[in-house]
């Protein structure tokens, strides 16, 4: 990659001719000779460095040649001296200035590196973040007239109290009957369509694979305004024919590329999906995505295949529509209420919202917060570059004065400083561009599922904006020395060194640093709160003993005949036996569902007196389940083999269900009902278990003995061996028993639990990452300005030392002066942080937004940072000999 990048630089810098080609080849040949298979990265970096030098040489040469009158430029005897002066000189001196600037930076490698890196961090970081936000939230959807596309949903007030429906009470999907009314009668829509995601097993040559399948109605592409890339989409007649004799399928472009060769004729070929052979009738354009809201969030919208849908009786569907020309969202909503495509209008209301809002639901706030954090980082970076450049002023006072004395005019010196700023800005921007390219994919990969993730790349406009901000700060603060320094009288400058302007700039840099410390405090408080919250989350008891526990689930197959069902039941037992015989396995259990894997579905419970109990999850488990999972038995007993054999109506309930249904007295021996089955007797109470994620609230649950309703294919295996060794043995044991088995999950529980907190971890890492970088930058800033300010006070300190002032009081004096400023910055930062922590309150778990521990430790931390950064340079001066300090410069 580095070599390719270097080649690209060479291609753009060298003129496009054969000679250039041979120059590039020479360098490549040299790389080939150097490479001996080892240290490839080192050689690649060498190559990049040589390419950069070569490119720089030729670019400068080209610039030179454009200058008429320059030694290497086209010369004409008729060019008058005046002409040469007016245009040529300007270019020539410009190049001179650039060369001079590069030489100046070469002499100060530390300053140059810090300034470039700071700018790069600010520009790269903010560009990466903003590129993501821009694509996800701000860009129009990749459909035709996206603003006319809407989501049609129902609001179900009653769902607010039902565990697994609570998340979607205001965005419920539509029933096929409702959809049928809408598509026939609604006039405010030019088209209405439904879709939903599902999974099917693709069988054919080789291993079966699970593919993501979209089911869509015939108008789906009309609503989106996207034509298929090849072939056609489904017709209305095909909608009801998913199980009929000749079902059809449309491929996504990605699926086509991964499963077929480019020149292969695809239309008319067959795919075996589940138990049926489908005929391919079309291919969708590349990057076709359609997201749906499901189980707590929007999915990424990727589907491998599409099959017709919309007619099946019992599913709910996500509905989208294209507003008719002239129709508004309000009119559409009003029409839906008039049509009342439902029997019970009192229960539900319809709502129409813009598709774009629907697609970015739940993402706007976290992304906006991250964006805020990056903006703060960019500001801090700019502030730091400003203090660095202001500090330069003190150093360069003499040089500028000397140059004025030698005849350089104010304009000339200003231009020189301007050039330096531009060059510095360009270097920082270049490094920032590189950083943005590296960081954007990292942000995308680390992050939670984002919509349109394939489209996210570094955005050119965003990059330009960040570069503009960064370079502007360099220009403003880079030119300050010119404006102040050249304004001073030459005499005073050469006489008094940089003292006058140093006092002025130290004031200015003092404020810049106070401002930086304020922003750092905000970032540190936010990062600290999220880190504490994450710590709390990881300390949360999942309710199972995750160490040494492995989850293994096998995708159930569709069972058409009694014989197949019997066969599968037998196979489940065989697999369990095979797993038990793997070396190192101490226990195997089997159940209908497993925590952190199954999508929880809950059912209402009813007490025997007819009162409505709590809704609860309902799982069927093997008698060994609780012991193997490491669940805590609180009272009563666990399920036994006798319960299973007798198919007894007994249940073990979780602590929270016991508390909710029988708040007073013991739940043991109590009875409850679910659905309309016979009463179930509670025989034991176990501790609560987390089911989806660590952050999600604990759902009440009851466990009943396994019955032969559905062959269970969810196994939990407890092992005493290391995961690495045992996982492959487990996989082999399953495949040896059933070669066609499709293993869906095979993962240590520790990983599943950790992964359930991935979003929180991402948020925490990003924010604390920003906060740490900000703290480092602010520390450098404080250190830099204190060092310079102290240096500015050398004389004063020297005189006081000579007059007998004690070293400690001198140091304390300097420190106090700067700490006051730092204290002001921190105070402002704390006020801002209180406000900022309210914004992130919804992401906090087990930590209050005003957490005193976080606020106190950040305050103390930042003040210590400022103290150290002030003390070190002050101590150095105070330790000097007064005679040395006072010796005339």
């Amino acid at each position, binding site marked *: 990659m580095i070599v390719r990048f270097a080649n690209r630089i060479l291609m753009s810098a060298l003129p496009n001719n*054969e*000679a250039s*080609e*041979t*120059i590039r*080849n*020479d*360098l*490549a*040949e*040299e790389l080939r*000779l150097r490479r001996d298979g080892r240290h490839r990265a080192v050689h690649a970096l060498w190559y990049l460095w*040589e390419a950069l*030098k*070569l490119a*720089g*040489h*030729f670019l400068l*040469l080209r610039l030179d040649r454009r200058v008429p009158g320059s030694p290497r430029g086209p010369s004409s005897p008729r060019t008058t001296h005046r002409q040469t002066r007016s245009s040529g000189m300007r270019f020539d001196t410009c190049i001179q200035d650039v060369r001079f600037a590069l030489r100046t930076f070469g002499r100060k490698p530390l300053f140059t590196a810090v300034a470039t890196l700071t700018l790069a961090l600010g520009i790269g970081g903010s560009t990466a973040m903003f590129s993501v936000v821009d694509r996800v939230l701000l860009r129009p959807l990749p459909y035709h007239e996206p603003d006319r596309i809407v989501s049609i949903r129902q609001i179900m007030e009653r769902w607010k109290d039902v565990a697994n429906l609570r998340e979607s009470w205001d965005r419920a999907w539509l029933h096929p009957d409702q959809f049928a009314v809408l598509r026939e009668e609604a006039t405010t829509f030019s088209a209405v369509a439904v879709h939903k995601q599902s999974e099917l097993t693709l069988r054919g040559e080789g291993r079966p694979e699970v593919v993501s399948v979209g089911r869509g109605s015939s108008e789906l592409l009309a609503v989106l305004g996207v034509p298929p890339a090849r072939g056609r989409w489904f017709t209305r007649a095909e909608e009801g024919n998913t199980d009929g004799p000749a079902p059809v399928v449309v491929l996504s472009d990605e699926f086509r590329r991964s499963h077929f060769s480019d020149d292969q004729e695809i239309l008319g070929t067959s795919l075996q999906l589940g138990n049926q052979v489908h005929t391919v009738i079309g291919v969708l354009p590349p990057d076709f995505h359609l997201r749906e809201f499901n189980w707590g969030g929007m999915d990424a919208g990727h589907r491998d295949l599409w099959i017709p849908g919309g007619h099946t009786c019992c599913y709910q569907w996500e509905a989208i529509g294209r507003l008719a020309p002239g129709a508004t969202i309000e009119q559409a909503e009003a029409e839906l209420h008039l049509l009342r495509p439902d029997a019970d209008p009192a229960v539900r209301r319809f709502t129409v919202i813009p598709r774009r809002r629907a697609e970015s639901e739940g993402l706007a706030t976290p992304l906006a917060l991250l964006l805020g954090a990056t903006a703060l980082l960019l500001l801090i970076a700019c502030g730091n570059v400003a203090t660095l450049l202001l500090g330069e002023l003190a150093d360069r006072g003499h040089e500028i004065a000397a140059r004025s004395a030698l005849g350089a005019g104010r304009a000339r010196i200003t231009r020189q400083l301007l050039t330096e700023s531009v060059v510095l800005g360009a270097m920082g921007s270049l490094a920032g561009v590189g950083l943005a390219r590296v960081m954007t994919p990292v942000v995308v990969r680390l992050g939670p599922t984002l919509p349109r993730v394939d489209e996210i790349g570094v955005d050119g406009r965003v990059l330009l904006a960040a570069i503009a901000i960064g370079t502007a700060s360099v220009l403003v603060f880079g030119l300050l020395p010119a404006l102040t320094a050249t304004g001073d009288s030459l005499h005073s400058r050469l006489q008094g060194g940089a003292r006058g302007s140093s006092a002025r700039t130290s004031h200015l840099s003092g404020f810049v640093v106070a401002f930086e410390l304020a922003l750092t405090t905000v970032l540190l408080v936010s990062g600290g709160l999220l880190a504490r919250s994450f710590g709390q989350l990881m300390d949360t008891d999942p309710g199972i003993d995750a160490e040494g526990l492995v989850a293994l689930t096998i995708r159930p197959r569709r069972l058409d005949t009694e014989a197949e069902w019997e066969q599968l039941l037998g196979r489940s037992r065989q697999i369990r036996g095979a797993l038990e015989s793997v070396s190192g396995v101490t226990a195997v259990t089997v159940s209908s569902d497993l925590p952190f894997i199954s999508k929880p579905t809950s059912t209402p419970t009813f007490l025997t007196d007819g009162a409505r109990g709590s809704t609860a999850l309902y799982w069927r488990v093997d008698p060994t389940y609780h012991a193997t999972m490491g669940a805590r038995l609180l009272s009563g007993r666990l399920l036994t083999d006798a319960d299973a054999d007798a198919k007894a109506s007994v249940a073990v309930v979780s602590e929270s269900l016991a508390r909710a249904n029988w708040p007073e007295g013991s739940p043991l021996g109590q009875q409850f009902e679910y659905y309309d089955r016979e009463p179930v007797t509670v025989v034991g109470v176990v501790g609560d278990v987390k089911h989806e994620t660590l952050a999600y609230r604990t759902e009440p649950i009851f466990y009943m003995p396994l019955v032969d309703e559905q062959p269970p294919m969810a196994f939990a295996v407890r092992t005493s061996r290391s995961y690495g060794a045992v996982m492959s043995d487990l996989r082999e044991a399953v495949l040896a028993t059933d070669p066609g088995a499709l293993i869906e999950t095979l993962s240590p529980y520790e990983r599943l639990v950790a992964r359930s907190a991935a979003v929180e971890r991402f948020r925490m890492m990003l924010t604390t990452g920003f906060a740490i970088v900000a703290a480092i930058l602010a520390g450098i800033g404080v250190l830099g300005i204190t060092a310079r300010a102290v240096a500015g006070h050398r004389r004063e300190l020297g005189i006081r030392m000579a007059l007998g002032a004690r070293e400690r009081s001198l140091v304390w004096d300097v420190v106090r002066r700067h700490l006051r400023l730092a204290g002001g910055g921190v105070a402002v930062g704390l006020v801002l942080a209180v406000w900022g922590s309210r914004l992130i309150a919804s992401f906090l778990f087990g930590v209050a937004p005003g957490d005193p521990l976080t606020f106190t430790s950040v305050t103390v931390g930042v003040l210590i940072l400022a103290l150290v950064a002030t003390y070190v340079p002050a101590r150095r001066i105070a330790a000097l000999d007064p005679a040395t300090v006072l010796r005339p410069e």
Partner: protein
Amino acid sequence: MNDTQLGEFEQAVLLSILREGPNAFALEVRGGLERDSGKPVSRGAFYTTVERLGRKGLLTWKTLRPEGSRRATKQRRFSLTSAGMQALREAKRSLKARWARLDEALGER
């Protein structure tokens, strides 16, 4: 300086090509220069000088593929033109003339 008068670096480049024999590759010529001078030679300066010598007609090249290389990369093979040889002879003569009778002044005799 007229067109056939040689600068020091130009001279070094021509001499290195002469030493490597006819049809020398850039890598060999630059390697020779680095060996002679004992310090790294900037690629940019080298190629600019080669182009300039070519424009002056002192140097010529053929673009070929290196022998035994299966890669389709073209590289230049440099040779001196007769004008190039003449310029080197002229440079040597003028240098000798300038040094003549100075050995004693330099305390080398």
